[in-house]
């Protein structure tokens, strides 16, 4: 009871501090993840107000162009995309994972995903967004957006804007934050699969809070943070603005929707967890077969459909790049399903539902960094390759690694993420049908980086992610283990986490 009161007191003081910060006059974003710092009036008054806004609000930029106002199509699309990614976690991932465990642990998986999702969204609002997407140093952002300060000014009724990848195009920064919140949340939820059926619920939550803070936000910052295309106005800006961006962004690594930030990051955390927590009791001797591949298929399908929001939404606009990302997400996944089924048929004589569902996820993972960065045939090739390589990842590689990665988080998300990240360097090249990349953000010139060099840059990004996540995860698991213990008791594990951790049964006896 005392502990509960102490935690509540701590929580309330945190919230009080946050509200106090909000109550102060919100500083317009001096540290941009936003392109236009001039705040636009609500969109109904868009056209006439644009000119008025220029006169009223001093534009910090030297140009006399009117402050950009969000386009309704872009906003509508991004709202939908955000909702799609939420669906990917709940119920997509929850059911995908849930169907794969034994029925006595079904609710524990659903709970772990559902509650992790909720916790990360709150932490993202409180400080995660600020750490990831404000200006700080090359590794981490700052506290300019702590408690979502500055995103919405209730006194003026104004919303701050965030940059996209097109000059002069913005979306409300709050929307960008919301979209990114879903990414942070699902990344953490992915890890759940690795230590399924034996982790203590409270330990999992504590681990997630630590890992989210020290692995997700820095890597998101390093790979994705930059000051936006509108900050690159003249040649003189290039050096200064590039220096403000995240380390891996500065290297020129391509990660459209999060091959490194989401998949490799989570997969390594999962693998380390599987090692640290140890194998499930009875692993290798008792049957741990999935209890409902029907639900796994439903989950995989929800993941696929939702992933269109994840990938195409990462374009941040309703434009051609979004459409490219959409189609690549469509075709690569389909190719991966075929590849996995073919591989299984060759290996074991039968294609399985679990294989097809896993193939789909493998393709989705691989195309994630690539979707807006590779060409149409390149995507299909990537999907096909990912299907085969990830099939090895959950068979041969899994045996080599020797960990009980219960739901093959590393085999699919780790291997798929690495394959996708590296092949993005290959198929981005215009000679291979790819869209190339922007070499100069002032004039927005597009060119291709030689394949070898591009792959090398991708490999660096992959390596940093693996090492960073690995180290942070290991420390986080150890901290949790030494304070509250990671694992449930053997009796609880045998009886099932649904009853012992949550006091419920998924299916009536």
């Amino acid at each position, binding site marked *: 009871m005392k502990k509960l009161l102490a935690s509540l007191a701590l929580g309330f003081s945190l919230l009080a501090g946050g509200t106090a910060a909000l109550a102060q006059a919100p500083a317009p974003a001096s540290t941009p993840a936003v392109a236009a710092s001039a705040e636009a009036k609500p969109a109904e008054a868009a056209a006439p107000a644009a000119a008025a806004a220029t006169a009223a609000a001093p534009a910090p930029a030297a140009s006399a162009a009117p402050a950009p106002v969000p386009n309704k199509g872009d906003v509508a699309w991004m709202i939908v995309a955000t909702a799609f990614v939420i669906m990917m976690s709940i119920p997509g991932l929850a059911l995908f994972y849930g169907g794969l465990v034994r029925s006595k642990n079904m609710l524990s998986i659903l709970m772990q995903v559902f509650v992790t999702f909720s916790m990360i969204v709150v932490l993202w609002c409180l400080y995660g967004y600020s750490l990831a997407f404000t200006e700080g140093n090359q590794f981490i952002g700052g506290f300019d957006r702590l408690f979502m300060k500055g995103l919405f000014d209730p006194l003026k009724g104004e919303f701050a804007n965030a940059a996209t990848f097109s000059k002069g195009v913005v979306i409300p920064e709050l929307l960008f934050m919301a979209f990114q919140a879903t990414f942070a949340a699902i990344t953490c939820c992915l890890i759940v699969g690795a230590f399924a059926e034996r982790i203590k619920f409270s330990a999992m939550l504590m681990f997630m809070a630590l890992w989210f803070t020290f692995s997700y936000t820095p890597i998101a910052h390093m790979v994705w943070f930059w000051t936006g295309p509108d900050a690159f106005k003249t040649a003189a800006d290039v050096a200064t603005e590039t220096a403000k961006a995240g380390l891996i962004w500065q290297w020129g690594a391509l990660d459209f929707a999060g091959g490194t930030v989401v998949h490799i990051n989570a997969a390594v955390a999962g693998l380390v967890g599987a090692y640290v927590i140890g194998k499930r009791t009875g692993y290798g001797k008792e*049957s*741990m*077969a*999935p209890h409902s591949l029907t639900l796994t298929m439903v989950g995989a399908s929800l993941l696929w459909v939702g992933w269109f929001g994840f990938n195409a939404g990462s374009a941040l606009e309703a434009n051609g790049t979004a459409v490219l990302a959409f189609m690549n997400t469509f075709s690569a996944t389909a190719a991966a399903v075929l590849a996995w089924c073919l591989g299984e048929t060759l290996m*074991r004589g*039968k294609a*399985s539902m*679990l*294989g097809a569902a*896993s193939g789909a996820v493998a393709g989705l993972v691989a195309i994630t960094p690539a979707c807006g960065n590779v060409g149409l045939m390149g995507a299909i090739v990537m999907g096909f390759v990912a299907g085969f390589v990830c099939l090895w990842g*959950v*068979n041969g590689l*899994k*045996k080599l690694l020797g960990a009980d990665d219960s739901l*093959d988080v590393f*085999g699919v998300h780790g291997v798929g993420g690495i394959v996708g990240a590296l092949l993005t360097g290959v198929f981005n090249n215009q000679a291979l049908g790819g869209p190339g990349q922007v070499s100069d953000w002032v004039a927005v010139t597009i060119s291709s980086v030689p394949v070898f060099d591009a792959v090398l840059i991708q490999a660096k990004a992959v390596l940093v992610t693996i090492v960073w996540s690995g180290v942070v995860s290991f420390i986080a698991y150890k901290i949790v283990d030494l304070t509250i213990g990671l694992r449930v008791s053997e009796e609880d594990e045998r009886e099932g986490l649904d009853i012992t951790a949550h006091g419920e049964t998924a299916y009536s006896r």
Partner: protein
Amino acid sequence: MKLVTAIIKPFKLDEVREALSAIGVQGITVTEVKGFGRQKGHTELYRGAEYVVDFLPKVKIEAAIGDELVDRVIEAIESAARTGKIGDGKIFVYNLEQVVRIRTGETGKEAL
């Protein structure tokens, strides 16, 4: 009085039920069970994990009958449930000490 128990292949249930009705057996109890005899199980493969499943689904039928019906019941079940392949099942006959109809309280042969 005898209790005749038969373990049969699940898809044979309807045939056996009809065959028993035809010779005047008025009530049976059916349970879904699993087991194995000489019929081998199968292997399931989930990603890299292989499981050998020894148990096969079967159906158990129990019928409480009078002594005079035993031979005909055995014959009826046998012919209805037989496929000729391994796994057809077995019939067990137990002595039944007492039978009570709960609704009326009748006992013995009247309760069958």
